[in-house]
């Protein structure tokens, strides 16, 4: 008998406690998904400042940063290099999503994905060297140049608006 009622008792107790403790809400409200939600702060997806707005902007950023990293590799501080590499890798990671938000068709998108993977592998090796306190060798592979060139050639196809 004890076991039979103990669970029920615990539940009733919890319900009573919650009724007494049920706390207040924010002042203004709005309706989201059929649910009234207190609106104390703006809800939004924050984008990093270096997040490119379009495929063309992303490719330009990659090209620019690639040239800058190669040119200043021996000159900038290790911390600045690390930051530059992290941002470059971020852009490469976002590139497939940004390309999916363009007019590129499947074979073209697959090409973008392949180039992004190639460049990521290359810059990953740079980033690991920089993170372990070494300066990466300043000799970019030809594949990198070809990958960036390939990304550039897809720019007109990314915006087919008449």
């Amino acid at each position, binding site marked *: 008998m004890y*076991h*039979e009622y*103990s*669970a*029920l008792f615990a*539940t009733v107790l*919890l*319900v009573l406690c*919650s*009724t007494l*403790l*049920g*706390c*207040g*809400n*924010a002042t203004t*409200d*709005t*309706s*989201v*998904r*059929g*649910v*009234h*939600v*207190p*609106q104390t702060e*703006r*809800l*939004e*997806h*924050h*984008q*990093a400042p270096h*997040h490119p707005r379009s495929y063309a902007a992303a490719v330009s950023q990659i090209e620019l940063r690639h040239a800058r990293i190669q040119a200043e590799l021996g000159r900038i501080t290790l911390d600045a290099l690390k930051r530059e590499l992290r941002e470059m890798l971020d852009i490469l*990671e*976002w590139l*497939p*999503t940004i*390309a*999916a*938000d363009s*007019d590129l*068709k*499947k074979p073209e*998108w*697959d090409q973008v*994905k392949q180039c992004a993977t190639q460049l990521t592998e290359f810059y990953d090796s740079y980033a690991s060297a920089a993170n372990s306190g070494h300066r990466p060798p300043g000799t970019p592979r030809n594949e990198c140049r070809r990958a960036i060139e390939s990304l550039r050639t897809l720019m007109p196809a990314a915006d087919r608006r008449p």
Partner: protein
Amino acid sequence: MFETIFWGACLRIIQATLQAAPFIFTGLCVVGLLHRMMGQKQTRWLFGSNTVASLFQSWLIGMLLPGCSLGVIPICKQLRRSGIAVGTIFAFALSSPLFDPLSMLYGLTLSKPITIVAFALCSLIVVTISGTIFDRMFPNTEVQSEEPPETPHGIKRLLAVLVVMARESVSSTAGLIFIGLCGTGLLSMLLPAGILQRTMSHANPYSPLLMTAIAIPAYATPMTAMGQLGSMFQHGNSIGAAFILLIFGAGVNLGLLAWMIRNYGWKMSSIWMGLMLLVVVTLSYGIERPLYPKDIEPADHTHAFDSYCCPFVAGASPTGGYLAEIWRRVKLDTQLHEIAGAILLGLLGTFGLFLRWLDRRWIIEEWLNRKAGGTVTLARGAWDIEVPGPVLAVTGLLSIVAFSIVGCFAYYPSPAETLEELKLAETETLTAARTGQKEHALHWLPICEGWIRRLQVGTYLRYGRLSEYHRMKARVVSDKLETLEHLLENGDSPDDIRKHVSELSRACGRLSRAYREEL
């Protein structure tokens, strides 16, 4: 404020009841088959008992059968009556509500299907470790009960299954299910509207622990839990918290805990729960880093848990009153299979109450179990064979599994059909957003999101694959829909909204082209 809390809890309980109805009905069907067709001995053979192999068997059966944590309560009672060890029962109870074919397909088309596979394997680890330790600690938990008399084959046997289902629906099971449903009401009382929106971040080491506190009293169907996992992945929330949501949110509820305490006492139940907590929380911290998606920019909020909080804001009562608002929302949210489940449960319950009333005069089981008298034997055709009960029971269980697989094709239509539905929803949303009809747009937004998910799953189901390109196209539209939702709820300028609507419209066009022409 009391009104807000009270009516909020009522709405949550009604919503959970409707969501649970088809699963409870399925659970009762399984009980009927096990009780009258399978029998106790064969049930023990099917599930096993007190061995590591039995834990795996139960986990596998649980994964195949569609169910939810409320629907497993009557099945657990039946397994106990069949003399199965408690570790094995818990292994089934925990695994059955986690996945079913509908939710598994949904999960496999999320951005990282490997995460869902890993979650399924982790659930096997959880039931194996906690079940093995528990069965070692308490080796003699098999209850011996009398096998019910066999019902003669034919229509009587089928009617006997229905009688078991009806009786079970108005037995202590109903009370336990109600306790489970109260958990959702309890959470809604404790959590003000939207309070969990900025929780469960990947960076917060306490996210899995907070989720544990919320998920245990919560009730979620496998599809709801999977949808919430999808939202958590999309927002870059804690993976450990997502795992706990699946195990405890979908797998456990207050009713199931009450059943354990009632049958096994506080000590055993606490030890089992302690073991579960230890294994699940340890695993959740272990998978946090390896399974975290790297290509996601974490959002600082999530809507995944809004449904666990109070649906109303204190001091801002709905225009037409709480009852009218509850009715409006129930009408909007309830799906066809939920209505069908609720009607079937209602009919079963009515039949069960009628049987109780009838028991005072005539016990139907006496008639059902009575063998036909007389010595006259009719000539039987070659195909008129007597099928043993266990064969019928296994066929019945397999039919339930097959039905849930066939149901997937209905729930996830072909891409062409889904795109038509999506087009309708999209037109409603975008027109409403453009013309400043905020409420109308906010109503249609989740419908659009739902069709985008179904588009992906329907494609995967029919083509056996879903390319990363197609996933990305869908993700872009989903992200833009969510941004539109935020623009609307933040009250941004009409110009900003119109600009975003135009971007969204283009993205929808590209999505449609990708799924029509490039599959």
